[in-house]
Each structure stands twice: as structure tokens, then as C-alpha cells.
């Protein structure tokens, strides 16, 4: 048996005949004609169709259709404004700077007064213009038809006045009796909202604002308090770390604020620089971060603390510092000394990040960073971040006193769903004097509350964000409130009896910030600038003025007593049996946005599964116990039992299982009803006062049933796995090749690459000079010299920078009106994404190497799809685009069959009016609000037509037009074509990419970035170039930073596993 070097699922590795049979065809399901016309159907319908009936029906149908077509053409109206607002130009977008709830500064694109797309704010010093998948999808929450439309009193809608007076009366009563008032919120990034909450609470004798986070980061602040006396989460400077160690910390996918962390990470991973960071990851699940790491060590959760001690000791030994007790645990391949060697070499320029919510682990991490001299260099305790302010101890305290609380306000909080204390809250709320939810949308908690005072969506609100100390970003409304809602800040101010509006409070809070600006502007000027730019900096966050003295950051000193206490605690952790890891997924995260169909349909970067929660199973366990993908497993832990389908996850630590949080919402809106799946929050437990995201003592049984999952990992195969092309034997010059090596190009050693950059691939420099076939039927598909003066669009994607985060997929979804099709259709390989991120594994399945490859229409110059279209619906444009004219398409699907990249998507149904898509597709005609998100410049495709990536042609056209209008002509006086400036047009995927992996531009412009890459970059190659499609999308080889020794060890282990499993011939 021969297997490809790269594989996307165990199926491709094992090459079982039944699997191979399913991937043979582009479209797996036949049109069920036989079934429709069978005698069985006739029997079911109760009549037998004969020729005469058929003719009668046909005749009737034809006549009816003809008659119904004879109506007068319906009148259309053109209704202008009565008084047109000055700043709205119908047909031209407006842009407003604002910020998401996650604290990402964004630019909202509004058409005719409604926001349709969010993009990262390039002026933000934090995110540098990047966005993540949930940020991109958050615009859809504005148009969520399930939102509260008016205040609620119990389960009936009420008027604001009535609700306000009832709440005020009850508050007065509580105040007079000296009762307990509590506000429970998630981390509030808005200083103004926090001050509004404080001023509300100030009126009561016993009042407190409790902050929690569904995914708690409480241990980091606690450990920092113990170690350094500062209860904060510091700023991490990943872009200054030459050696980076992540411990159970998915900082590129879900941990803390992945957007800014990804962009910092990418800065250090550019092979064009003289140095590239080395990234080690120690984790239980295979996360996006782990899959980008140079070396990865799968470790059980109970061993993580011990691994940290071993790492500390290895570093301490090299530095001649005292070691900690314990440390007998050892990583595979002598990992701790390998890591320690590199860390010690990069003292002060290394960083160890730990994502375990356990103060002991965090303290040891602090210890490692401290002895390496990283404090104050890659970790800045003086510039804390406020993404997560939750405190587990505060939360525990609240839970303890719940029954004595008189009034509880839920401000952006849903503890009945997303904490382990659902039961406590549920019973306490029912008996409480006053319970008010300020949710925007019904959730598990608000359903129980006596009153709901619905908050605006963030796109309707005023507000501010300070996510990083000193860096402020504004929140301004981009649309009039859609429903009868009121901003949470206003509600709190109203109930506290203040007459000020929240917007005024906000402005007065910003007066202080204005005082710190050195430009001498008036407050109005400053405020106008802030609204335009979206960002303002406090004095200490501003770049220092030259000559001005800045006080050196006080070096924090580590408390050694705390360290040894932590070590002994971590050493004690022991676990028997299997362990369960409770983790976040990149799309769904903590479940707050589980009702967002874009996020549900976004395939998980690693498991490539949509819509469902499932139990991830290590490869080895699956093999030994005969567990197959989709087998239902029964998982028991501490008396709780859950059942879920198995997904075999290569790279998952042996002895562990994984289950995602954020699913199984009971009251999360119509989208969550589409697929009912497992809620993992009840499995969380408190360990030493902190929420623990793992459980030990797990038993697993097979149930013998299966459950269908919509997993896209083996769909859209670029290579033909049935061909069994053998891998090229060493030293052979025969034309043996493994097709997967024509798809993925990678180099394992950065040093080798730097020594011999030309050896990366044979494609260097050829991208610009595409060679033609000697004989061809389709001359016009090649580059036309006369067209050289015009634009030729091209794209280059850096595999080294792509972390697989999926922001581009959602961004494309929003920009191009891509339909959401739901689980059943995804299962039939009918998902509609124009861009997908293929995830390839290689090496041993117990700990594989991973490469992410964004794949979209390659806009081939010699496009196989174009030659087979019988109606010329897909043809080439002068600018090198592979155009798709929907109105011409008759749906033969020949093009999709002939596409070697498998990027064409067929509209099997009319997704905007099919009954099955009512709850999943926001653009469904029964959803009057969801349709608002559609981009008016892009057609919504109908049933029966093919669609695919257009390179965001609407943006290209808009950008070109802007340049031409500026020039007043399409030709310059010298006869050259007027072209948009390089970089002024960004495709949606490019714009949202937090790492800048995608470069797009005009290949005919010698000064464009993409031209330079095509001309000079030696990592450039085209996917399956040998089929001679001459694509306009190029990829850049992935370069890993491994030492020769590491490469050797990995290779040996791979070989071993391959022989063990008889995968090598």
C-alpha cells in the first residue's frame, strides 16, 4: 500500500476502498431520478401515472404557466428621501470607525444607512487592521431576527416607562431595606460603561459589580499578584520573542485576543527576515496554535504542570539557578532540554505563555519567564490588557450568597448557560426580588429574569473600549436602533436616577483623555478626530517624544515563596483513567455567538467539522479500540454522562478526549435549533477556587450507534487518491511523483532555506513568465501583449503566515452574499464557501505536521472550466479574471467536474426561499431583517447556477472607478491606462487576514507588491502546476524552523509509525 505524503484525514492515510469510492466524483450524490419515478413512489402517492395523465398534466402546466405569465409587468417605484441627509450618498458606502464587543477596533461599511461589512481598523496599534472570524461574523448579530424587540416584563412585552418605574420602585424598596444589589457582567471593555455601573451601584449600601468570563483567565491575574504583586493580565510582546513556548494556550485561535497575537506572531515568522522565531507548543488538543508550531509535544492536562516544572528546572540548571522540587516528568524526544537550550540562548527575547487556568501553572510560567529575564521585555506588567477581567473568586462569592441577593442585573452575562453554576442561578433568580437582564437577545438567563431591558447591538451604540492600557477606541452608532431597545449604559443611568445620557457621560469621560493630547486642539476637534479615526491614546501609550525622559519600567521581582508553593501544588496533580479536555473552538468560542449561522457553518480549522459538537479521540485510542469517525461514544465523568460522535483527531495527547464548549444552547435562537448537540458547560468543575477546563477519571464506552457529522475534511480532493501514485523513491529520476507534493510545498529547516533559498522549489522566477503549450486550441486564454498596459490581477498567499484562523472564510461570506446551507447540505459536500482552508497533515498521526492552505478559484489563464462550458457562462476577462456570468449558466456542472482545484460551488437549491433553509440562511426571504446584511453590489445567486470566487470583482470595479473618477478619464494623457494605486484595492479575504498572508494586486504594474513577489520571491509556486492551468494565484512555501536534530527525530518516528501501520510500501 502506498499513501500520499500529505493527507487530510485518517481515511486518506488508510486508503480503504470504500472511502476511495466516495471521493472519486465531484458530486457524490446522484440525482434521485430512479427513486422519484419508481413504482414505490407511485404506490405511496396512491396512483399510477400513465402517458395520458402525463400529457394532461403537462398541457395544464404549460397553459397555466402561459396564462400566469400574461400579467402586466409590475410597477416598480423609485422613492427618494424627503430630506436627504447630507452625508448619505445613495449607492456610495459610508465608513464609520467603531469597535466590537471583543474590543477590536473596526471600520463599518454602511450602505444607505445600514452596516453591511466590518473590517479591521488599520489605524489600530493593537490589531493593525486584522480581524478574526467572530469579529467578521458579529455584524450578523445586528440583524438577528431573534433579538429582543422591546422591553419585557416577565414573558410579555412592555413599555419602557412601565418597566422603568417598576424597577425603580423595587430598587427603592431594596435600598430602604438595605438589600444586596449585584451586577453580574462579562469583562466590560468600556471604561464608561464600568463607570455607569459604578455610579448606579453607588446608591446602594451593599452593592457589588461581579465580573466573570465563561472561559476564565482568572488564574493569570492571581498568579501575577502572588508573583509580582500586580493583579493584572500583562501585555505579551510575541513580536519580540525569538523563542516562543505555548503551554495549553491557543493564542492564535482563541486565547485572550487572537487577532493582535496572530499579527505579532506573523511578524516573527517571515522567512524574508534574517531571523525567524522558533515556536514550541505543549498541549493536549491539537489547536491552531499547535498546528503552526515548529515542535509540538502532546501532553495530558494532568501532566502539564509537571512539564512546566521540568522545563523550569531544565532552564534553571543551565542558568545555574536553584531548581524546583519534582520535575521527574519528561517530554518526548527530551523536549524540555531542547526547549531550555533555545530559551537560554534567547534570554530576554523569549516568551513562555500558559493558558491553563491554574495559579500554580501560571506561577511556574512566571518563574520561567523571570529567570529568563523576559519580564519587562516580552512581558509588560505595566501595560495590562483588559480583555478578560473576570475573577473566579468573586464569582464563587456571588454563587455562595446568591440566595440572599435581592437584586441581580445581568449585564452581558448568561451564567445559566456558560458557567458551571447553572442550577444555582436558575433557582436563585426565581426567588429573587428583582432580576433584570440587559441582553440583546433571548438567552438562557434572560428567559428566567423578571424584567428584560434589552441593550442595543454594539453597532447601534455609543461607547468606548480600552482593551490595552492607554489605548482607547471609540464605539459609535452606525445605524438607527432597529428595535425598541435602549443602551445598557442609559438603562443603568436611568435607574440610578441620573438625568445624563450615556453618550454625554462618555464624552465627559473622554475630556480627560483630551487633556493628554499634545496637539492643542479643542475638545470638539479632538472628538471629531476620534470619531473619524476610531482610536485615541493616553499619554503613556503614545510613542515617546524625542528628548523627553521616560521613566524606566520598574523591574518586577519574583516572589520565590509563591513559586515553590506552586511547584509543590503542581507536582501533586495526579489523575487516573482517561482525561477530558474542555476547549474553545475558533468559530463558536464560548457560545455567545452560537446563534450566528456564519460561525456555525465555518469549518473548524483542525477537525474541519461544521455545525456540531463531538468528542475528539486520539488516533492511537481509535485504532486500539476500533473507534471510527462518527461512532457515538458514551463518556462518563463524576456521575455525569454525555453521548457524542467521535472525531479522530491526530495529534491529540494519548489518554485524553476533547469536547468543545459553546454548543448545545437551549435558548440561543433559531440557528442553534438547527442542530441540537452537546453542552459541555455542566462538565466544568471548580478546582482550588478556579474553573478547570479538564476533567480526570473519565470512562468511555462505545454505544454501537453512529451519528452523522458534517465534516468537510476529505471533500474537494485536489489529488486522485485512487491513483496510488507512489512516493518518489530516494535518488530516483523517474517521473514518479506524489501529487500531494505538488499541492503543498514546505521546507523544514529555516537555516537550510537561508543557505540555499533557490533549492526550495524549481518554480522560482517562473511565475511571471508563464510558458505556453506548444499546441493549443485556445489562443485567447494566454496573455495578450496588447493587454499588458491594462491591469492583470494576481494573488500570492504565504503559507508561512496562514494560521488557519478562518477570518477570511467569514469575511468572504459577508462580502459575497454566500449562502448558508445547513448541516444536511454540508454533509452532501454542498457547502458554498468560496474560500476554504484546506488542512493537510503529514508525518505520524500521533503528532502530525500541519499545513494550512487557503484555496479559492485560481483564475487560471488556461482554465479547464472555461473550455467545457457549453454556454460560455464562464470565460476569461482581459484582466485575467475567470468570470462567472450567473445569468448565462444553465447548470451543466461540467466546469466543477473539470476544475482541478475543486473550488466551484453549485446552487442545488434556492437557498433564499427553500423551507429547509429558513433557520440557517440569514438571507432567507422569511427573514426580513437578516437580508439587510446582503451586499447590494453582489447578486444573490439562484438555484441551478454555479458560483465561485470572483477575486471580489465588485471591489475591483469600485476601486478602478474611484481612480478613473479622480483622473476624470480612463486613459492618461500619455495613453497609458488609469489604474488604481497598488494596495488601494483589497479583496475581502486579504483585508481581514490578521497576519497579512494574502497579497493581491496588479501583476502588470512593476512596482506592485504582488509583481515583486512573483518576480523575486524564491518560495513562490503554483498548486499542481504540472496540469498547466497557469493560475493567477501563487503560494509561498511554508518554512518551519526546526533544527537538523529535530527533523531527524521526527522523520524517524514517522517512519516507525508508517511501518507499524503498514502504510509504506
Amino acid at each position, binding site marked *: 500500500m502506498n499513501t500520499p505524503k500529505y493527507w487530510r484525514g485518517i481515511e486518506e492515510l488508510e486508503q480503504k476502498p470504500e472511502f476511495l469510492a466516495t471521493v472519486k466524483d465531484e458530486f457524490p450524490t446522484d440525482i434521485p431520478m430512479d427513486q422519484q419515478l419508481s413504482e414505490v413512489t407511485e404506490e405511496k402517492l396512491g396512483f399510477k401515472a400513465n402517458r395520458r395523465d402525463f400529457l394532461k398534466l403537462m398541457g395544464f402546466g404549460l397553459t397555466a404557466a402561459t396564462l400566469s405569465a400574461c400579467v402586466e*409587468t409590475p*410597477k*416598480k*417605484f*423609485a*422613492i*427618494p*428621501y*424627503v*430630506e*436627504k441627509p447630507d452625508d448619505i*450618498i*445613495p*449607492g*456610495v458606502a459610508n465608513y464609520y470607525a467603531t469597535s466590537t464587543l471583543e474590543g477590536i477596533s473596526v471600520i463599518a461599511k454602511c450602505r444607505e444607512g445600514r452596516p453591511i461589512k466590518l473590517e479591521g481598523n488599520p489605524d489600530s496599534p493593537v490589531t493593525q487592521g486584522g480581524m478574526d472570524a467572530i469579529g467578521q461574523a458579529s455584524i450578523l448579530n445586528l440583524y438577528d431576527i431573534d433579538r429582543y424587540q422591546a422591553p419585557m416584563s416577565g414573558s410579555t412585552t412592555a413599555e419602557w416607562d412601565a418597566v422603568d418605574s417598576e424597577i425603580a420602585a423595587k430598587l427603592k424598596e431594596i435600598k430602604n431595606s438595605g438589600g444586596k444589589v449585584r451586577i453580574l457582567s462579562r469583562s466590560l471593555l468600556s471604561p464608561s460603561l464600568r463607570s455607569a455601573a459604578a455610579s448606579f451601584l453607588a446608591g446602594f449600601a451593599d452593592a457589588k459589580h461581579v465580573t466573570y468570563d465563561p472561559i476564565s483567565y482568572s488564574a493569570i491575574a492571581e498568579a501575577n499578584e502572588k508573583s509580582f504583586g500586580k493583579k493584572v493580565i500583562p501585555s505579551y510582546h510575541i513580536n519580540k520573542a525569538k523563542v516562543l513556548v505555548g503551554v495549553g494556550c491557543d493564542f492564535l485561535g482563541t486565547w485572550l485576543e487572537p487577532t493582535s497575537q496572530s499579527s505579532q506572531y506573523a511578524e516573527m515568522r517571515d522567512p524574508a527576515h534574517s531571523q525567524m522565531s522558533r515556536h514550541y507548543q505543549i498541549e493536549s488538543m491539537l489547536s491552531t496554535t499547535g498546528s503552526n508550531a515548529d515542535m509540538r509535544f502532546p501532553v495530558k492536562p494532568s501532566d502539564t504542570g509537571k512539564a512546566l516544572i521540568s522545563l523550569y528546572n531544565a532552564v534553571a540548571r543551565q542558568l545555574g539557578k536553584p531548581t524546583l522540587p519534582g520535575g521527574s516528568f519528561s517530554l518526548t524526544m527530551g523536549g524540555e532540554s531542547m526547549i531550555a537550550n533555545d530559551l537560554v540562548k534567547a534570554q530576554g527575547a523569549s516568551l513562555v505563555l500558559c493558558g491553563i487556568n491554574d495559579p500554580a501553572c501560571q506561577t511556574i510560567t512566571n518563574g520561567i519567564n523571570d529567570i529568563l529575564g523576559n519580564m519587562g521585555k516580552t512581558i509588560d506588567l505595566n501595560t495590562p490588557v483588559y480583555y478578560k477581567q473576570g475573577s473566579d473568586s468573586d464569582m464563587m462569592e456571588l454563587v455562595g450568597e446568591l440566595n440572599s441577593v435581592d437584586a441581580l442585573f445581568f449585564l452581558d452575562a448568561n451564567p445559566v448557560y456558560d458557567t458551571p453554576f447553572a442550577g444555582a442561578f436558575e433557582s436563585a433568580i426565581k426567588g429573587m426580588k428583582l432580576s433584570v437582564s440587559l441582553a440583546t437577545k433571548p438567552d438562557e438567563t434572560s428567559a428566567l429574569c423578571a424584567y428584560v431591558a434589552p441593550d442595543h447591538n454594539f453597532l447601534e451604540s455609543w461607547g468606548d473600549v480600552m482593551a490595552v492600557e492607554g489605548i482607547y477606541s471609540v464605539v459609535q452608532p452606525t445605524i438607527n436602533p432597529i428595535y425598541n431597545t435602549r443602551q445598557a449604559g442609559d438603562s443603568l443611568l436611568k435607574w440610578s436616577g441620573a438625568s445624563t445620557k450615556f453618550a454625554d457621560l462618555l464624552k465627559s469621560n473622554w475630556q480627560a483623555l483630551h487633556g493628554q493630547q499634545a496637539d492643542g486642539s479643542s475638545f470638539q476637534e479632538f472628538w471629531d478626530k476620534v470619531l473619524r479615526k476610531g482610536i485615541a491614546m493616553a499619554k503613556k501609550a503614545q510613542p515617546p517624544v524625542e528628548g523627553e525622559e521616560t521613566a524606566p519600567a520598574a523591574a518586577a521581582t519574583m516572589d520565590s515563596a509563591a513559586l515553590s508553593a506552586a511547584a509543590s501544588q503542581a507536582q501533586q496533580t495526579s489523575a487516573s483513567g482517561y482525561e477530558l479536555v474542555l476547549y474553545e473552538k475558533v468559530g463558536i468560542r464560548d457560545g455567545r455567538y452560537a446563534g450566528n449561522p456564519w460561525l456555525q457553518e465555518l469549518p473548524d480549522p483542525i477537525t474541519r467539522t461544521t455545525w456540531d459538537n463531538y468528542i475528539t479521540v486520539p488516533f492511537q485510542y481509535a485504532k486500539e479500540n476500533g473507534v471510527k469517525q462518527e461512532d457515538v461514544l458514551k463518556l462518563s465523568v463524576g456521575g455525569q454522562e454525555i453521548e457524542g460522535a467521535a472525531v479522530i483527531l491526530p495529534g491529540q495527547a494519548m489518554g485524553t478526549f476533547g469536547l468543545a464548549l459553546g454548543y448545545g444552547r437551549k435558548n440561543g435562537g433559531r440557528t442553534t435549533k438547527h442542530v441540537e448537540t452537546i453542552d459541555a458547560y455542566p462538565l466544568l468543575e471548580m478546582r482550588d477556587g478556579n474553573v478547570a477546563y479538564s476533567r480526570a477519571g473519565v470512562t468511555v464506552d462505545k454505544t454501537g450507534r453512529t451519528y452523522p457529522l458534517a465534516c468537510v475534511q476529505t471533500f474537494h480532493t485536489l489529488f486522485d487518491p485512487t491513483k496510488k501514485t507512489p512516493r518518489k523513491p530516494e535518488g530516483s529520476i523517474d517521473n514518479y511523483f506524489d501529487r500531494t507534493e505538488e499541492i503543498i510545498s514546505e521546507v523544514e529547516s529555516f537555516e537550510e532555506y537561508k543557505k540555499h533559498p533557490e533549492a526550495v522549489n524549481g518554480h522560482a522566477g517562473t511565475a511571471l513568465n508563464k510558458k505556453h503549450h506548444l499546441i493549443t486550441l485556445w489562443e485567447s486564454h494566454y496573455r495578450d501583449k496588447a*493587454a499588458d498596459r*491594462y491591469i492583470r490581477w494576481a494573488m500570492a498567499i504565504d503559507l508561512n503566515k496562514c494560521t488557519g484562523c478562518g477570518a477570511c472564510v467569514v469575511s468572504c461570506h459577508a462580502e459575497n452574499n454566500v449562502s448558508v446551507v445547513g448541516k444536511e447540505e454540508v454533509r452532501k459536500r454542498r457547502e458554498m464557501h468560496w474560500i476554504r482552508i484546506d488542512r493537510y497533515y503529514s508525518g505520524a498521526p500521533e503528532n502530525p505536521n500541519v499545513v494550512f492552505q487557503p484555496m479559492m478559484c485560481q483564475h487560471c489563464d488556461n482554465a479547464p472550466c472555461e473550455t467545457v462550458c457549453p454556454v460560455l457562462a464562464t*470565460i476569461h*476577462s*482581459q*484582466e485575467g*479574471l475567470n*468570470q*462567472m*456570468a*450567473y*445569468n*448565462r449558466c444553465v447548470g451543466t456542472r461540467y466546469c466543477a467536474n473539470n476544475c482541478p482545484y475543486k473550488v466551484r460551488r453549485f446552487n442545488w437549491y434556492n437557498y433564499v426561499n427553500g423551507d429547509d433553509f429558513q433557520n440557517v440562511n440569514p438571507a432567507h426571504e422569511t427573514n426580513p431583517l437578516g437580508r439587510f446584511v446582503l451586499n447590494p*453590489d*453582489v*447578486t444573490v445567486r439562484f438555484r441551478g447556477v454555479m458560483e465561485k470566487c*470572483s477575486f471580489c*470583482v*465588485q471591489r475591483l*470595479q469600485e476601486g478602478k*472607478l474611484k481612480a*478613473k*473618477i479622480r*483622473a*476624470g*478619464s*480612463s*486613459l*492618461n*494623457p500619455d*495613453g497609458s*491606462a488609469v489604474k488604481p494605486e497598488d494596495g488601494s484595492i483589497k479583496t475581502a479575504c486579504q483585508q481581514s487576514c490578521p497576519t497579512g498572508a494574502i497579497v493581491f494586486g496588479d501583476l502588470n504594474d512593476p512596482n506592485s507588491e504582488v509583481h515583486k513577489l512573483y518576480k523575486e520571491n524564491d518560495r513562490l509556486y503554483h498548486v499542481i502546476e504540472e496540469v498547466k492551468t497557469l493560475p493567477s494565484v501563487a503560494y509561498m512555501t511554508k518554512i518551519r524552523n526546526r533544527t537538523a536534530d529535530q527533523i531527524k527525530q521526527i522523520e524517524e518516528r514517522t517512519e516507525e509509525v508508517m511501518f507499524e501501520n503498514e502504510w509504506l510500501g
Partner: protein
Amino acid sequence: MLRSAHFLKIFILTFSLMLSWGGSSLIAQDAAAGQKVFRSYCAACHKIDRAMTGPQLGGINEKYAGDEEWLYSWIRNAPELINAGDPKAVALFEEWGTMMQANPTMTDADIDNVLAYIQQEWVASQTATADGGATGAGGGDQANPLDQPQFYYALFALVAVLLLITLLLLVITATLVSAVRAKEEQEPLRLSEIQKRTWSLLKNRFVITAISLIVLVGGLTKWVEWSRGISIHQGYMPEQPIKYSHKLHAGEYGIECEYCHSGVTKSKNAWIPSTNVCMNCHKLIQEGPKYGKEEIQKIYDAIGFDPAKGQYIEGYEQKAVEWVRIHNLPDHAYFNHAQHVVVGGLECQTCHGEVQEMEVVYQYSTLSMGWCINCHREEKVKTLGKENPEGLTVEDMGGLDCARCHY
């Protein structure tokens, strides 16, 4: 032909008149630039040859000769002069009852130009009147013959004559045949025989095939032609909620299209003007020449304006005017006005026809894809308003690519 001769005459007259004025400063002014200024600032209330809301402007140069300074400040800021109690200004205000709005953005050069334009037009109209209307009846010379009823009378007469000839020939043939038969002593020709012969001729297989073929081919051609016209609404002229006349506003008053359809240079949409744009003029002009107050009242009903008091009604619930959309492109076709007007330098009339002559606007062009494509094939791309030296057409620049309009 007649029309251009008329223009030529005016031109020569104007030119010689101007020459005869010799030292007049007006010669240096740009009457063409003045026309633009006139249309954007003055045309809403003034005409050159007669009085409208404001007095007639023709002859203004002579009237205020030597008093230019006052005239300039009056044009620039009439309200100020009136309020300051300037006797001439107050007299004018009392005479006309309305106050001319201030035009502070007008430069001296603008006023020079507009005065030059007024002078030019005034002289031309005087000359034309002096010519005695001899040229006045020259219009309509290029009308389509198919539109003339005479054409159909002639056609009818022709058909009648041909029928008569056929009948005559038949009679002659019958007479001759009868004569020959009589000579050869055969049976005389009877009506039944003629009928029989005609019948056998009609039953001839060749004739049947030929007739069927003609009917089939003709029918098919007609059917194809007809079906190609489906969803083409050329000539569509729906009734609008307000009997707004482009002929009056754009034609007679010469208001630039862009004044109301201001989106045309910025956006894909040209925009139907919002009601507040109407109010720029109709706050003062409360009565129209044709429908009186009735139609203008509809604007006031929409925006909430009390013409009697001359002020907006507080707290009025505004209702948008629901214009019937005439030009409907299908959803899958993207069209951008700014592209064609600013970059392409096209006149509105190229696609919309002579709107300034339409009492009720109708769809002038087919708006079919073939019509778009034809223009893209033929239209030469302009380089800053001039034709490009290479003669590049829109097609040469990729203007026929699907994804230029369909995405």
C-alpha cells in the same frame, strides 16, 4: 438644414454686432462659461426674453450701464442691499414681491460671464424677432416619413390602383379567352370553370409547400422578433404621482440635469431628487404655468410646507413621493452613472433621449444588453474629454468582459 442655417445667421449677426461694439468689455467675457453660471444660479427664477418669478434679464446690461458696481453687489447679495434700505433695491423688491437669494459664492468673473451670456442671448433673440419669424416654421423637417399620415394615404392609393389593374387584367384575359374560344367554337368560359381552375392551382403541392413555408418562416421571424422584445420596455411612459414636466424645467427654464439628479457624478444611481431639492425653488414658486397650484401642492404635502405662511409645518409627518421607476435594469446587471458621465463623458441625452423636450418622461432606449454592447463596441474612449489618438474603443479596454457588469 434650415435650423443650422438659422443658427449660422444668428452667429454671424451676433459676431458682427459684438465687433461693432468694439471697446465693450463684454467681448473678453466667456459667454459659454456664463451659460453654466446662468443655469445653476439664475435659470430657476429668471428668463432672458421675458419675466418669470424674477424680472426679464435681457437688456439688463443696457439698463445698468454705468451702474455696474451696484448691479454686481445686487447679484451677489440682494437681501443685504434691501435690508440696508438701498432705494433702488427696495423699489425692485416692492415691484416683484420676492427677494432674490444671496449668491455669495459668485465671483466677479462669474458675473462678467453671465452678463456676457445674457447679452449674447438677448441680442440673438432680438435679431430672430427682427427676422420676422421667417425661420420659425422650419422645425420638424427631419420627421420620419412613417410618422406622416400622408404616407399611409399614398400607400392605400397605391394598393387600390394595383388591385384595379389586377381586376382589369383579369377582365381583359377573360375577354380574350372568351374571344379565342368563340373563334375556335369551343365551350364559352364560365365562372365555375374559373373557380375550378383556381381551386386546382391552390391544391397544387408545390403551392401548398411554398405558402406554408412562407407562413412558417415569416411567422417564426416575427415570433423571434417579438420574443426578443420581451421585457424590453422602450417607450414605457407611466403616469407619475406629480405631473412634473421636464420640458418646462430642463427645456424652457434650462435647469441643468445635474442640479436635481446630483448623484450622476458620484454614484451608480443618478437619484430621483429628494423633496428638499424641489423646495429650493418651490418655496418661492408656488404656482406653475400649466397646472397652477395643484401639482406643486403635492410637494408641500410630502414635505410639510404651508405655502400661505411660507414656512414649514412643525412636527409634520413627512411622506415620500412615490415616483414610478421608468428605467429598470435587471438585478444581475450593474450600471454606474458616474462611470459613464464622469469617466466616459457621455451626455445624459445619449441614453435618455431629449428629456428636455419631454412633457412626460419615457424610456427612450431599449436598455437591452445588445444596446449596451453596441455602444461599448463603437464608443471611443476619451482621454480627458478628448478622443484618444489610438482610437481605442471601450471594447479594447475590456469593456465587453462579463464581469464588468455582471457580478
